[in-house]
Structure formats: C-alpha cells, structure tokens
C-alpha cells in the first residue's frame, strides 16, 4: 500500500448492543458484542472482502462504516475526517460518497415507486440536479447496469431478482460514490444470475474506480471480487491479507478450516484437505475468553484461554498479511483431521 492516507480508516471499531431485561424495570442485563475492536483500511479503488459465518459481525461492520449505526467505541475516519460520532449534519456530505447495496432485492426497493423514482431518490434527497435533469441521468445509469433505459417508468415487480439487484446497483451509483458497502449483494440470487451481477460489480469497480467493502459468506465469490480479504470470527478479524496470500497460505486455523469446508464442483483425484470443526459458533453475548476461536480449535492451549492473540504479522508472512493466532499454521503441516461427531454444546 502507498503512503497516502487511505480512503477509509477504521481502528478499534466496537459495537455492543445492550440486552434489556423484562418488565418491570428494563435494565441492561448484558451486551451482544457484535463487533469488538476492528482495525482495517480501505484504499481508493480497492475492494476489501469481509467473510465469516453468520453472527460474526460482518453486516454490523458494514452498517457502522456507513454510519447507519453509531459505534460504541473506536474510530472511523473517512478521507481524514472523523465520522465516528458525526451527527446528521456532519454526515450529510459524506452520505453521498458512501453508498450501500443490500442483500434482498425484493425488500430493498419500494414497490410503490417506479424505477426512475427509486434511482433518482438519492439525487433528490441530496438536492443534486445533474445536467439534463434526473431522467437523463437515470437512463444513463440504467444503461450502465445493463437494463433497458426505456424501462424507467416500470415498477420493481416487473423485474426479475437479478434485474432488481441491478436497479439497486444503479441507485448506489447515482451520486458517483467513492465507496460502496455491498452486503451479500448476490447471495439471494440463482447461481446463473449471481455471475451476471458479480461481473457487473467488477466492471463498475474497475471502470469507475469505486472502492468496495464486499461482505459475503461465499469464499469463492469474495476471492473473485476482492483484492484484499478479512476473515471475521465472533466480532473480531482473525486474519487479513492480500487475496492470493490468504487463499494460498492461510495462517489462522479458522481461515484454513473455513476454506477446507467450501464444497467445490470438481471431482478430485486426490481428495482435498478437509478440516471438520466441531460444534457451533459460540454466543457473542458471552464470548470465550482469550482467543474466541479456541473452543473449536484443535491447537488451543492454556495460553489461548487467557491471552487474546493480537492481530500481527506472523513470522514468514508477507507485509500486510496479519494473523491473530498464538500458533499460526504453516503450510507444510497438515492438521489432525477432525470428526464432526460429538460437537460441544453450543451454549
């Protein structure tokens, strides 16, 4: 990475959701530690992938960056400006530069508005009048995302899932954003349509130079789309690296297990390494002490229970490849196979 300041700088980002007790006194009885101390940067035009299993805090992270949620702690800096606790007025100029694409193309478009109104919405709200008026810009955007520009008068129900997601992309592009947070943009789509939307996003990223935070649980799609990838587990980043580094040389046991669990549509002569994790992800209300992955890790020792491993460059790693593990993996040692039987209680 260059020395210029990154587009987005996140340090120590934390979000704890309070859990309220029942009647009669709604006291706070605990906290869901959804996101707990994240550090990462996104450079201009770069795509950072955030992967992890459900409940690991990747969507919360997306909502914190876009400031749909206010962080409990830490700092979010966008182009040198601290937006961690910025109010409505402070955020107004930034809102147009950070846009979001949502997962569900059926829930994220207002069924009573025409496509034209939906896509022009961000321009109206921000009081932007492009040369030639809203309609011209909407037609332009529809063309960019591969829809017929004549369709601006139609309603969302007249489009298929993949086309709706294209409308979502057009809306996100309406204000020429610098950063797009895409939260599982293709996981609701059929396989053949997923590829269409991934290609579209890739074109947009390359041609318009927009930075992406790409949130997904599908490791193959993240690999295809992101130059850098962060793996999250229970609210923490366990490993972050350049794409090739991460997929070819995963150092965190969780990354390795996650990669080995992805079913691939190939028939291998030599079976791939398979690591079977036992049990489920623990609850973020009361996460394990020390390393949060230790309850499912085959290498865990006393040290893992008492000392949280810092996210650092492990020996032998390339610069920028950070791993939070006391006993990082090496490529030549194949870990003991884990059986899926007798998982530990999830609670």
């Amino acid at each position, binding site marked *: 990475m260059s020395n210029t300041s990154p587009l987005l700088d996140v340090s120590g980002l934390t979000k704890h959701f309070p859990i309220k007790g029942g009647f009669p006194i709604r006291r706070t009885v605990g906290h869901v530690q959804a996101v707990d101390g994240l550090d990462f940067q996104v450079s201009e035009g770069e795509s950072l992938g955030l992967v992890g299993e459900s409940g690991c805090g990747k969507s919360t992270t997306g909502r914190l960056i876009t400031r749909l949620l206010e962080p409990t702690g830490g700092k979010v800096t966008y182009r040198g400006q601290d937006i961690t606790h910025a109010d409505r007025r402070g955020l107004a100029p930034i809102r147009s530069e950070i846009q979001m694409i949502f997962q569900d193309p059926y829930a994220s478009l207002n069924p009573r508005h025409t496509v034209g109104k939906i896509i022009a919405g961000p321009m109206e709200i921000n009081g932007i009048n492009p040369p030639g008026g809203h309609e011209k810009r909407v037609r332009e955007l529809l063309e960019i995302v591969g829809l017929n520009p004549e369709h601006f008068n139609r309603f969302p129900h007249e489009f298929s899932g993949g086309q709706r997601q294209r409308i979502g992309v057009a809306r996100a592009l309406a204000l020429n954003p610098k950063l797009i947070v895409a939260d599982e943009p293709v996981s609701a789509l059929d*396989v053949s*349509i*997923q590829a269409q939307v991934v290609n579209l996003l890739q074109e947009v990223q390359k041609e318009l130079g927009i930075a992406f935070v790409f949130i997904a649980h599908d490791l193959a799609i993240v*690999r295809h789309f992101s130059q850098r990838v962060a793996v999250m587990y229970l609210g923490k980043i366990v490993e972050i690296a350049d794409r090739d580094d991460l997929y070819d040389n995963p150092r965190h046991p969780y990354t390795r297990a996650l990669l080995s669990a992805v*079913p691939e549509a190939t*028939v291998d002569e030599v079976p791939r390494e398979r690591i079977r994790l036992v049990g*489920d992800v623990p609850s973020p209300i009361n996460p394990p002490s020390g390393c949060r992955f230790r309850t499912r890790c085959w290498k865990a020792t006393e040290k893992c229970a008492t000392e949280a491993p810092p996210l650092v460059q492990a020996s032998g790693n390339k610069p920028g490849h950070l791993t939070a593990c006391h006993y990082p993996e090496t490529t030549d040692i194949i870990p003991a196979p884990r059986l899926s039987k007798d998982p530990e209680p999830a609670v």
Partner: protein
Amino acid sequence: MTSTDQQPFLSIKDLKVHFSTEDGTVKAVDGLSFDLMRGKTLGIVGESGSGKSVTNLTILGLHNPDSTTVEGSIELDGEELNGASDKTLEKLRGNKMSMIFQDALASLSPYHTIGTQIGEVYRKHTGASKKVARARAIEMLTRVGIPQPDVRVDDYPHQFSGGMRQRAMIAMALVCDPELLIADEPTTALDVTVQAQIMDLLKDLQKEFGTAIIFITHDLGVIADIADDVLVMYGGRCVERGPKEEVLRTPQHPYTWGLLGSMPSLDGPVDVPLNPIPGSPPSLLNPPSGCRFHPRCAFVEKVEGGRCSTERPLLEIVDGRGKACHLTDDQRREFFADLAASKAH
C-alpha cells in the same frame, strides 16, 4: 445383498405435475423420469422454479390434490404411489420414506419439545408407548451427534442452534429407519463449516442403514461432495443425467456448462469475468417452445433448421448417462473443448 437390489428402489416414469392457477396452468414438472437404487444418492440440481422441490413433494404425496394434476408413475419398491389412497401414503410417510426440509426452524413446532416431536413419528408408526418413544428419541439424538441427548431431548426448538435443529430434523426423519430419504436443500441455510458437518453425518448414516437419498440443491459443489448420480433440471425437465464424475468432468448440456462456468472457484483465475448464463429462468406458466433452455442458449444457431425452438429434445439415456439437447456429439465435443480452453487462462 438380495436380488431386489438389482431392481430400482424408486422409479419415476414420465412424471407430470401441473398446477391450475388463475393465470393458467403451471407445468412445474413436465415429463421427468429417473430411477434410484438402494444405498445410493441422487443429487438433483437446478435453479429456483426448475421443479426440483415439486417433484419431491409429489413423491411424498404432499401436493394439494385440489389444484394439482399428477400424471405418470411413481413406484416405490414395486408399489405405485400416484393415485394411492391417503391412508397408504400416511403409512409410508415418516416410515418407509421421509423428508428433511430446508428451514428447520419453520419445520419444527415451537410448542413441543424436540423429544416429543421425534417420538410422535415413532409412536404413530410403531404404536410404541410414550416411554419407549422417548428412549428412542434419545437414541436418535445420540446418533446424530447432539451432546447430552438425555437433557436436550426436553428442549424446545428455539433452544437449539441452527446446526443442531437440522440434526434434530434428521433424527426425526430417520427415527423409523426409512429406506428413502428426501433432503430438500438441507444445508442451504447453514454456514459452510456446519454444512460440512451435516453432509458428513448424512453420509455416515447412509453407510450404516443403506438408505436411498434424493438430495436437492442448487449448489454443484454440494453435489460433488455427496451425490453418486446427478440430475440437472431446467424448466421442469431433466436436461442432463449421469454419474457425478462424468457430469462434472465432461458435462454435455449447454445449461450445465453455463452453471459450471458461472461459479467462481477457490483456485481459478480471478481477473477474468465469470461466464454467466444470459437472461433469467423461464416462467412455467408460459414456457418457451421446443427446448426450454433455447432462449438463453449460446448454441441455438449451431443446430440446423432452428429445431431448438420448435422441437423438444428427447432425453436419451445410455448406461445411466444422457442429455436432452439437439447438438451433435461432434459439435458438443468441439464447443466444450473451446469453453474449457477459455476458462483455463
């Protein structure tokens, strides 16, 4: 091994399932045939609306008889199920054949404990007492790998995690040792690490009991892991069938090529665009004429006389391998080699 092993355990012949709706007739399944042997797994793969779930609900007799017409034959172990009485089907369901659904939380009753729900199936089919059924439920929970089964048997579904609920569903489906198990996207709602656990569990149980499994999914990766044979469905019809190795290594139908081409892999090239299938799946209310895939197919013009849009390609099965496509074998080899070459770099 007895001589019945040579007979297919489940045999579907020219199955047609049509729904009448206000807008017209939906041809959800339109002439589907396949056989399944004991102890084998058939993977059915297809996109939403391809008719894969409808096929299996029809096998179990779970379709709505008022609005559905079912033609063709469904033969389970020599017994015809199409047109069988409710009583017959009721006896078979949960007993000789059972099903695992995608959404375990929605498929379990929130008001009853896991143990009661598993035991109920057992009591219905064997007439066992509550006490025996409870013991059986604990035994099943042990078998599917639920920790502390004698305690968890009294839990309610909401007290289980997603993976555990799916395990409980599997326990319920297997409580009467069914010979046919239909799994409809059983792992789609789960995380990959839990998905891997559940697939291992199903494979172990199949080895132990010799259950025949129909595994429905949209993920070819899952198919590669679990199936023996693959059936690719598109628009209510089978477009390609064969042993897993052959379908994945040398797919023969342009739709299968498209599916494989649109999936990114963990070790393929990254800076080239994916090869999506253009367009979107057809409406079954008014499906395309001829080959249902022809509006999205890149090779329509290679077939002489525009037959793709006029003539339905027949599924010819030789030694369990076949496809429904008008391309000649030479063309197929040539185009597939081109596709493989373009994907390699």
